[in-house]
Structure formats: structure tokens, C-alpha cells
């Protein structure tokens, strides 16, 4: 009975797997491109701005400047000090989030239709005329330093910092975007103005909007918002290779459960084999409890609460990473199982059934992503920042469907290399030592 229903459901999938959103491509009067999905049933708008560059633009000796600068944008601008700015924002019931990332800085705004002019005027001040008052710098710097000290005792953060340093050395990817206690302590107001100038350029902006706004209104809104930002931008860093060989690095830390982060080099987002790699990851460690690693490490052996893998195509490098956590006396076994599964997948690839199931999931779940104005605005800006066109939404499932078993198994052999896989283990793991 249940098998029968299942068969019907699978045949339905192909027919309904289309994202039902209509993206408008617009250009503002001053020439900034933006994508819009109009949705007027709820009277608010979500706006996402992504500026390429991000913390890779930190100048030598100024690590953490971009991160601190972004944290200070909500701390006063124009005529308003920090409290004045936030009081104005709260009274408009608008939400502004300012985020610094490795490759970009982003601004996520959600605001009501009925006071959108006031909300955008306030956001414009934050973006174009931040004050970086010394009192605000001191206060937020203390918060950042407190976070850096906490990270130094967080096993997950220690694992990430160790892997990044070993893999990328002096490249910006080799250190945390928060900076170090020393570098953050040394940042001046002038450094923050410089970081702001470098991070925000209309030459590097991608705009996504969703909600209760018309295309012509959005064009004017964008020009009002971004006019005054520089249209030139500093040079971006060079590409960097993942420089870490296979092996194990143990970072001793007194805690009951060891945390392991592992990986090797990955694949570029615009590589023609990216979709094959994407499917391989889905089957190996991407899709929750359904993945091979979850089945072998968690479901069969009860060694962990979670194990997962993820392709990380950044702008200037590509990695393939994974993570697992197990009690100190069980982590060695968990890692051995992961290494075996890595080797098995490289050697034998996927079965046709696994490939079909992964395709069905990936094509079926794609339309469900476009759920809510903020999600849609984020997806629209994100797609532009990785160089995709609006037609990608319609064609993406065809790219997935076109991948053959031959493709995935060829790419599995190329991408997965158990000998190059490096594990950074933070804890007191029994039976594991740092390799030479």
C-alpha cells in the first residue's frame, strides 16, 4: 500500500518541480542593476545588498577592520548617535542587519511599506555617512574582543582557526575575519573609515528585493540609498591553493567530546562538473540523516549526533569540508569510518538508485526554498554575486537532471582523495596523534 503511494508521488515530482517566482531585472536611473520579486499580499519589503570583497580587503596589519566597521554601522550616522539611530529604527519597526563575511559584506533590511521612505533614509545614513564615534568604537571593540577570547575556548572555533591557518597561511582566508586581540586593539577611527571606503562600492554591489514594492519605486529607492558611495573599488586578493596535505592534527583541549573538522581542496562554483560534485556531496554527507556518513557513523554505530560535509566554493579558493563530534574515546572510530567511506565513494562512486534519489530530492526541494520575502531577497542577491542569470531559477533543475552516473563517478574519483584528507581534532582524543 505504502509502496504504491510512493510510486505515484515520485512521478508527480517532475511535473511540479518548478520554482513559482517571477524575477524582474531592473536597472536604476543611475545604472545599478537589481532583481525584484513583487509580492503585495503582506505590506512589507525585504532588501538584500551584497558587496563583493568583504574581509579579504582588510589591509595588512588591520585584520578585523572590516568586521568591526560592519558592527559599527548601526552605531550612529549623520546627526544621530548610536542610541538616537537605534531609537529611530525601532520606532519605524524596521530591521537592519549588517554582516561581514570572507568574500563580501551584506546588508539585510526588512521594513514596512507604509514608512519605507523614512526607513530607507535612515539606512542610507548608516551606509553612506557612518560616524564611527570613538565612544562607539570603544564599546563595540570590547564586545568583539570578548568574542575573540570566547572563541579561543570554543572547540569548534579552535578547529576552524587551526584548519584555516594550516591550509591558507598568510592569505586572508588563513585567519578569522574577527581579527586577533592585538590587531583589533590597534584599529583606529581612520582604519574604520578606510575599511568602509573599501568595502562599499557601487561597482561591486548586488541587489535583491522582494515584497510590496513596484519596479520603478525600487529603482528610485536604490539610487537614493546608494548614491554617495564610491564607484571605484580596491583590488581583490589572489587565488590561493588549499596547502594542507593528508594527515591528522590534534589540538589538545580539556573537554569530554572531541570536535573534528576535516577537508581537502574542492571545486569551483562555475566548473562544468560542479553539479556532479554537488550530487556526490549530497549522497556522501550533505543530506541530513539520509547521507552515507550519517547512516554509517550515526544510524549504524551511534558514534555521533551529527556528521556532515559541505562544498565551500569561495571567491579565491575551493574546499571540500566536513565535521563530526564524538566522545573522546569514540572519535578515532568515527574518523576511521569516515576515511573508509571517503575511499569507497572515490573508488566505486554512487549507485544508479542513489543518483536518482539525490536528483529527485534536489529538484523537488529547490522550489521550496523560495519561501518568504527575506529568503527570496537573499537568494536573488546571492545568485547575482556568484554570476548567475535570472534564467537559472528555471533551468537549475535541468542542470541537476542532466548529470549522468558516468559523470558523478568520474568526478567522485577526481574530487575525493582519502590520502589528502586532513583531520583537525580538538579535544582529548584517544588513539589519535598529530601526524608528521
Amino acid at each position: 500500500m505504502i509502496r504504491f503511494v510512493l510510486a505515484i508521488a515520485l512521478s508527480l515530482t517532475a511535473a511540479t518541480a518548478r520554482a513559482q517566482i517571477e524575477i524582474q531585472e531592473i536597472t536604476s536611473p543611475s545604472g545599478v542593476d537589481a532583481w525584484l520579486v513583487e509580492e503585495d499580499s503582506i505590506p512589507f519589503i525585504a532588501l538584500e545588498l551584497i558587496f563583493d570583497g568583504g574581509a579579504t580587503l582588510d589591509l595588512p596589519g588591520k585584520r578585523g577592520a572590516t568586521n568591526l566597521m560592519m558592527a559599527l554601522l548601526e552605531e550612529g550616522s549623520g546627526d544621530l548617535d548610536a542610541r538616537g539611530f537605534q531609537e529611530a529604527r525601532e520606532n519605524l519597526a524596521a530591521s537592519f542587519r549588517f554582516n561581514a563575511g570572507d568574500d563580501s559584506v551584506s546588508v539585510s533590511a526588512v521594513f514596512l511599506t507604509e514608512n519605507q521612505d523614512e526607513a530607507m533614509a535612515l539606512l542610507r545614513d548608516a551606509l553612506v555617512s557612518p560616524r564611527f564615534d570613538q565612544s562607539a568604537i570603544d564599546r563595540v571593540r570590547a564586545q568583539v574582543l570578548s568574542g575573540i577570547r570566547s572563541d579561543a575556548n570554543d572547540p569548534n572555533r579552535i578547529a576552524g582557526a587551526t584548519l584555516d591557518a594550516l591550509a591558507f597561511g598568510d592569505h586572508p582566508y588563513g585567519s578569522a575575519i574577527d581579527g586577533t586581540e592585538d590587531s583589533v586593539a590597534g584599529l583606529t577611527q581612520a582604519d574604520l573609515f578606510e575599511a568602509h571606503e573599501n568595502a562599499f562600492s557601487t561597482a561591486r554591489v548586488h541587489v535583491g528585493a522582494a515584497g510590496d514594492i513596484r519596479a520603478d519605486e525600487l529603482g528610485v529607492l536604490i539610487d537614493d540609498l546608494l548614491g554617495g558611495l564610491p564607484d571605484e573599488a580596491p583590488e581583490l586578493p589572489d587565488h590561493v591553493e588549499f596547502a594542507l596535505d593528508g594527515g591528522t592534527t590534534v589540538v589538545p583541549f580539556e573537554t569530554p567530546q572531541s570536535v573534528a573538522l576535516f577537508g581537502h581542496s574542492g571545486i569551483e562554483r562555475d566548473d562544468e562538473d560542479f553539479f556532479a560534485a554537488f550530487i556526490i556531496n549530497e549522497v556522501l554527507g550533505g543530506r541530513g540523516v539520509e547521507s552515507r556518513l550519517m547512516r554509517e557513523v550515526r544510524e549504524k554505530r551511534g558514534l555521533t549526533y551529527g556528521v556532515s560535509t559541505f562544498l565551500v566554493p569561495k571567491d579565491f579558493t575551493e574546499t571540500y569540508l566536513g565535521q563530526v563530534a564524538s566522545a573522546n574515546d569514540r572519535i578515532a572510530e568515527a574518523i576511521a569510518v569516515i576515511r573508509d567511506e571517503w575511499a569507497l565513494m572515490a573508488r566505486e562512486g554512487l549507485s544508479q538508485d542513489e543518483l536518482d534519489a539525490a536528483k529527485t530530492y534536489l529538484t523537488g526541494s529547490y522550489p521550496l526554498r523560495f519561501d518568504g520575502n527575506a529568503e527570496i531577497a537573499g537568494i536573488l542577491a546571492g545568485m547575482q554575486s556568484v554570476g548567475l542569470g535570472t534564467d537559472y531559477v528555471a533551468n537549475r533543475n535541468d542542470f541537476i537532471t542532466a548529470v549522468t552516473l558516468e559523470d558523478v563517478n568520474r568526478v567522485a574519483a577526481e574530487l575525493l582523495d582519502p590520502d589528502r584528507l586532513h583531520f583537525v581534532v580538538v579535544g582529548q582524543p584517544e588513539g589519535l596523534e598529530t601526524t608528521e
Partner: protein
Amino acid sequence: MRLLAAALSLVAFSATAEEVTTYQLDNGMDIVVIEDHRAPVVVHMLWYKAGSADEPVGSSGVAHYLEHLLFKATENVESGEFQRVVAENGGSDNAFTSFDYTGYFQRVAADRLPLMMQYEADRMNNLVLTEEDIVTERGVILEERNQRVENSPSALAREQMRAAQYLNHRYGVPIIGWKHEMETLDMDDALSFYDLYYSPNNAILVVAGDVQPDDVLALAEQYYGPIPAEPDLPERIRSQEPPQTAERRLVFEDPRVSQPYISRTYIAPERDADAQKDAAALTYLADLLGGSSFTSVLPIALQFDANIAVYSGAFYDGLNLDDGTFGLTVVPADGVSLQEAETAMDAAIEAFLDEGIDPARMDALRVQLKASEIYARDDVGGLARRYGAALTSGLTVEDVQAWPEILQSVTADEVLDVARRVLVRDQSVTGWIVPSREVLQ
């Protein structure tokens, strides 16, 4: 200031209520349907009125353990099959356990709703566990506890504080369970909890998204309707808190703490059916004291007017069946002792109670709460959780729908009144979380 005045007059919208239809099946199962036709998606949630606070003595963690085991085989379905089918249909799924409820949900294309109901109804009654399931999944929940609690000093400290806060109520025991009791959980523990509580007369079905209420009712009758009610379902009576008459203080020491901090909790009333005013006032109190890092009392006193803290906040969530907590946290600035920070925190609260509340702050919060109802309509899954959590915590659909208006009606005097009743040190626990007692020297 001009901007502020303009804003307040502008935000004059009305927060339209979501479209909700309710039913009850003959076997006692309650159904809530929330319509949202913007996207062809549906969220199917089944909530059981059984959480960790309903567990028998000595088997803490069994509600959450059973939640994990519900993904194993049934008489009709292989282990893991339901999750595989959800994934094959492009959906996502998960489950959650709290003090007062256990819930399961799937998010799928709207035309897959019958398939979800078929599987979810099946595992309400037909679970078949093996000894191997019991052993491996116990390993998994112990690793989950390692990950969430044992590896996190702040989570370990919270457990100690809750245990001290509740003198008589089961809320003092962690949802995931005490480790020594989790290690002994077995087949009987899991199945006896399952047989008693996983019954249609103890369940609430919430379906939200691109659906017609009549269709949902027909499907629910088809799939859930044939399951018999549990005749021996016990009344939900937990041992209640006595009057709390002595302040409790603790020092939690863990070398992994890099940033010492203060945490204070007070026992606090929750939202009760037809009596939500205190909880509404406490919602304002949390916002006024510490909801905003810029405009609330504690951040202004401790971070702006003086350099005493790097962070301060206040917390309250009124969605529990029984009394909850009102919480404060202060992270002292460099060179400020925990005692100095705590004294400043208490002085700021004292001043707030003496000086009263600026009417402009009340107005601003009313506007924000009203706007949050508009934003909430963008997330139909969130609306579904709102109803599920409320209906498993002793509230009715009418209570959920009255809540936004009750929030709008709260006055400054009501906030001060509830603050004076709740912010009483004899009803509180104060924790100092430190890397070592040496920092207290």
C-alpha cells in the same frame, strides 16, 4: 526627534489575523488549519501533549529519546523510510522535544500532504523497536548531550541554575535528561511512554500552507480518524512550585569559560488560558529592561552611561504549561568584578521601578509588537509553531488570537506591578559563571 514623531503616527496599520479553521475528530484529535496560498507548499505538524516534564521519575530524557526512536521501523514501514520518502519528495522534516510537548513536522509541496499524513498516522500507533535501535540511538542521544551540554560550560551552568530554580516542579530537570539516567533508558521506558501518550486524544495536528480546510479535515479523518483514543490518558497534573522564600546563589566553575558573566532567573507566571495579562506585561518588561542593546534600561545604565558591561540583556518566554522564568544576563567589562556588575544591575532595576516608565517607550514597543505581527505572516511555519506550542501548553486557539490585542492593551502601571511581584530576590537564582574561583578573589 522629528523622525520619531512621524514614525509613530505613520504606523497605524491593523495586524490582520491569519486565516485559521479548527476541527476535532471523534477520537479527540484537535486540528488547526492555517491558510497561506502564496506558494504551493504545506507544513504538516503533529504535536503531542507530552514533553520532558511528563516523564516518570528516574527516566529523564525519555521523551526526547522516544522522539529519536520514532524514525525507526513500524509494522508497515522500514527504519528511516519516512525520512527517505520526505527527502525523495523534495521535502524537509524534523522533530523537537520540549518540557511540555513533542512535535514532528514535514515541509513539502502541498500535493504531498496525504503521503505525510499516511506515514505520520502510521507511526502514532505501529512503532516496532529492536534492541539494536535501543543501543545505537542511546549512543546518539548521549553524543547529542555531549555536543549541546557537556561541551558547553554555559549550557552546564544553565542546568545547575534551573535545578536550583525549581524546588518541586519537573522543569528543573533538563529536557535532554541527566546523563546518568539517559544511560539507563531502555525499551520499556520508551514503549511505556509511547503507548500512553502517543494517542489521537493527546495530539494536535497543525497544517499550514496552500490547503483548503475541508480537504485537510477529510484527509485527517481518513488517516488519523481510525486510530482509537487512549482511554487511560492521565490528567496533566504536575507537582507545582511552593512559594519560593529563599534566594539561591551559585558559582559555576569551568576552565573553558573565557568570559565570566552573571545570570539571574526569577520564577515567573506563564500565559494561562483566559489569563494572559501578566505574561503580556512581562513581555514588555523584558523588552524594557534588556530587549534592545541601545534603548533598554540595562544596556543604557551598564554600557552607555557607565562602562560596566560589554553585554546585558533580559529574557522572558511565556509559553509553558506551568510557571516559567524571567532572566537577566550581564557580562562585565574588563576590570569590573562580578560583584560590581551585579550591584550595578540591581541598582538599575531599582531605579527603573522607582522612576516609572517613559510613555514614549511603551508606545514604541506597541508599534514594534504590532509590526512583528505583519512580519510573522511571512513565515507560515512560524505561525504553525505558534499554535502548536500554545495548544500543547494549556492555551486555546482563542487565546492565541487574543494575544496580539492583549499585548497592545498593556499599560505602564501593569508592567511595574508585575515587575514588583516577579523581580523578588527570594524567588530568584543568581549564578556567577567563572573559569575559576580565583577570579573572585
